[in-house]
Structures are given as structure tokens and as C-alpha cells.
């Protein structure tokens, strides 16, 4: 009996009753909460990709070293491991800061402040995309990496490279050393971008057979290397330790999955950045046009795109961790 009275009581207050959503239990707007739940689903998508990377990496005997793969810097010669990706991280972090400044200016209904900080955020996002474009271009054009070909490999045992005549050279390596397989027809200018780690001698590379970047013209089996039909130069080397000691082997491609995972995951993140930049631009123009002034809700739309933008930064923290740091 008591229950029915309560029920009737609530129905009486239909206009402002709790059951009709008179009060928001999360004290947040519908739009913001739904942005959060979209971001949860997106987080699971990215987590799935990154976990796939981890599982495939754990299943391989060797994996390309990030410090070796990501060691180029625009305009600089030599090895600068992780320098460029650190710069990219700073660009994205800075754009996250300008984004929160825009949100804060929105809270106090300062239209010009919102536009100013959003513009800086757009520039930060565009700068990040530019950096990523350069990184991809270096890997694809300069180092011949593709979705299915990974020219970055690592030695599983110590050994010594053979020179052009097929004799042992003074170019030695230890287990775990990285190498980048070059292609014919790339010429000498390419040699500076690549290199075989610290043992790379540059000038004596030519007489020791080097990468053969200038030595080999066509596919075939040569004393110092095998050139495959695609033009990749597989340098020959002699193993000096372990079960295979004394055996002559050729450089092999790295794990095939590496290129696909790298381009797909960083590409998916870059696509998020691109989407974010476009929406930031649209909302910035709306702000400048005074669309949100009438709403008098503290520029909530800026807050919502802000949530998305910080999420893109958050994902980068983990992409950075998984691809570059570990």
C-alpha cells in the first residue's frame, strides 16, 4: 500500500520530479557526457591496436629498435635517436595547453580570447601533422619502408660483414645491432641517412663493400651481397658466435608486421588529429561569428571539442610509449 502512494506521489510531481530527469546526477550536460562516452569507445579501439602491436612484437624473435628506426631529424645529419618524435610530442602537448586556455576564456565569455587560443591550437595540430608527414616521407621514400616491407632488421648473433670481394671486412657487429637494408639506385646521398649504427665508417664503407649503394646495379648474387628483384641489397656476413658460427648469411627483412602496424596506428592517430583540426577550425569560425554568444553556456561547444583534442593528446602519450620509448 505504502508503495503505491509513493508512486502516486512521484507522478503528481511529474513536471519537476526526479524520474523525469529534473536533475542531472552527473552535474554535466548531455553533450559533454556523450563526448566522454564516445572517447571511451575510441580509447578501446586504440587500445586494441596497441595491444595487437604488443602481442605481435612479443611473438617475434627480433623487433626493430626504435632508437635506430626513428633517428633522423630534418636538416641534420647523423643519428639523433628520438629527437624528432620528442619535438612532435611537445608540439601536441603545447596545443593541448592552448586548448585549455581557450576553454578557460570561454568560461568567462571572452570571445576574442577563445578565437586567439583556438587559432594557436589549430596551428599546433597542423604543425604536428606536418611533422608526421615528414616522418612518413623519410621512412617511405628515404628508407623504403612500406606496409609489407620492413627493411629495418637486427642481428641475432655477432659477426662480420663481407667486402665486395667476399672476404671478411673490418665491419663487425654484435648480437642485437640494427641494420637498414638499402636499395640499388639510391646513390651515395642515401648512405648518410642510413648507416649501420656506430660501426658505420662512411668513407671506408665503399672499399669494404659498404651498402653497395653505388656498387650494385642489378639483381643477382654477388660476393658481398645478394640483390633481390625489388632492388634491396642483402649484405652478406659471417656469423662469429653460437650454433651458426662460421656460416655465411645474408641480411633479411625485419618483421613484416612492423610497417603495417606503424603506418596503420600512427596513421589512425594522425587521422584523429586531422579530424580534430577540421572541427577546431569550424568551431573557431563559429565562435568568431558570434554563434555561441547567444547560448550563454560558457562556450560549451569549445569544451566539447577540447575534450576530443585532449584525448588525441592522451592517445599520443601511449603511441609514444609503445612505438618509441619501449
Amino acid at each position, binding site marked *: 500500500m505504502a508503495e503505491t502512494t509513493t508512486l502516486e506521489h512521484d507522478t503528481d510531481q511529474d513536471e519537476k520530479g526526479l524520474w523525469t530527469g529534473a536533475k542531472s546526477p*552527473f552535474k554535466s550536460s548531455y553533450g559533454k557526457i556523450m563526448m566522454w562516452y564516445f572517447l571511451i569507445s575510441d580509447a578501446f579501439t586504440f587500445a586494441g591496436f596497441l*595491444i595487437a602491436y604488443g602481442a*605481435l612484437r612479443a*611473438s617475434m624473435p627480433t623487433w626493430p*629498435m*626504435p632508437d635506430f628506426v626513428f633517428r633522423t631529424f630534418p636538416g641534420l645529419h647523423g643519428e639523433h635517436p628520438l629527437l624528432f618524435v620528442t619535438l612532435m610530442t611537445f608540439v601536441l602537448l603545447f596545443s*593541448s595547453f592552448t586548448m585549455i586556455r581557450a576553454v578557460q576564456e570561454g568560461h568567462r565569455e571572452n570571445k576574442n580570447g577563445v578565437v586567439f587560443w583556438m587559432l594557436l591550437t589549430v596551428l599546433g595540430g597542423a604543425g604536428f601533422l606536418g611533422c608526421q608527414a615528414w616522418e612518413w616521407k623519410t621512412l617511405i621514400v628515404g628508407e623504403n619502408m612500406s606496409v609489407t616491407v620492413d627493411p629495418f632488421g637486427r642481428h641475432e648473433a655477432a659477426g662480420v660483414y663481407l667486402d665486395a670481394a667476399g672476404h671478411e671486412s673490418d665491419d663487425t657487429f654484435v648480437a642485437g645491432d640494427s641494420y637498414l637494408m638499402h636499395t640499388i639506385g639510391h646513390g651515395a646521398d642515401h648512405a648518410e641517412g642510413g648507416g649501420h649504427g656506430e660501426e658505420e665508417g662512411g668513407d671506408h664503407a665503399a672499399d669494404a663493400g659498404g651498402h653497395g649503394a653505388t656498387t650494385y646495379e642489378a639483381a643477382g648474387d654477388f660476393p658481398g651481397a645478394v640483390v633481390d628483384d625489388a632492388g634491396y641489397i642483402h649484405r652478406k656476413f659471417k656469423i662469429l658466435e653460437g650454433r651458426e658460427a662460421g656460416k655465411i648469411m645474408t641480411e633479411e627483412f625485419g618483421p613484416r608486421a612492423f610497417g603495417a602496424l606503424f603506418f596503420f596506428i600512427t596513421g589512425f592517430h594522425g587521422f584523429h588529429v586531422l579530424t580534430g583540426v577540421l572541427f577546431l577550425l569550424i568551431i573557431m569560425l563559429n565562435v568568431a561569428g558570434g554563434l555561441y554568444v547567444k547560448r550563454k553556456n560558457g562556450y560549451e561547444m569549445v569544451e566539447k571539442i577540447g575534450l576530443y583534442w585532449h584525448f588525441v593528446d592522451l592517445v599520443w602519450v601511449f603511441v609514444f610509449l609503445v612505438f618509441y620509448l619501449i
Partner: protein
Amino acid sequence: MSHDYESSKKIALKTILILAVVTVIEVLIALSGKGYLFNGALMMPWYLMNSLMIGFSLYKAYLIVGEFMHLAHEVKAMAMSVVLPMFLLFWAIIAFMYEGNAWKGNREVILEKDRIEAENSIKTQGMLIRPETKDLNGH
């Protein structure tokens, strides 16, 4: 209101500075741990290095989500509705890393079998041995 604004401005600046410093520390650990810096004086085992960097990354994630995305200052129930589902990932990570290792183990077993098989076929040269007719289990 203006006091609120000033203090939140300060918090944003402080957060971004911490994030930047933590990022620099992470990169320094990644490079010195593998012997690229300080002539290899600070090399560390991979598990120490990786756990340090995962820890730092989680701290960065906390700062971004808590301060930049303001989740630390939302109603607790809402914060939990976002954070708790993420705990599902812990098992996903453990399970898939374990699975990856198992694939690696299987591959090593197969390579070892192939090697033994190759050695045996060299020893018994001249006899008719057709390894390719064997089934996947090597029988």
C-alpha cells in the same frame, strides 16, 4: 569568478610544465637506459626501464584526463563511469602479451624440429626421405 579564472590558469600552466618535464625524463631514460647517453653509464635492464616509462606515461595520462579534461573535478560517479571500463584493458594486455609469447615459443619449437630433421636427412643421405610428406605435427 575572476579569482577562479586566475587559479585555473595557473593550474593549466603548472600541468603543461609537469607534462613537458616528464616527457623529457622519459626520453632521457629511454636513451640512457640503452646506453646512448653518458657513455652507457646509466644502462638499465629492460624491465626496469619499461616499468619506469609505463609509470611515467600513466602519470601523464592522469594529468591530461584529470586536469586538462577536468575529470578529476567532475562528479565521482561520472569519473568512475569513464575510468572503471578502462580496467578491462589490464586483462587484455596480460592475456595478449602471454599469447604473443606463446606464438614465439611455438615458432621456436618448429624451427628446432626443422633443424633436427634437416640434420637427420643429411646423415641418412641416399635413403628416400620425404620430409614434406609429414603432417604438421612431424609424424
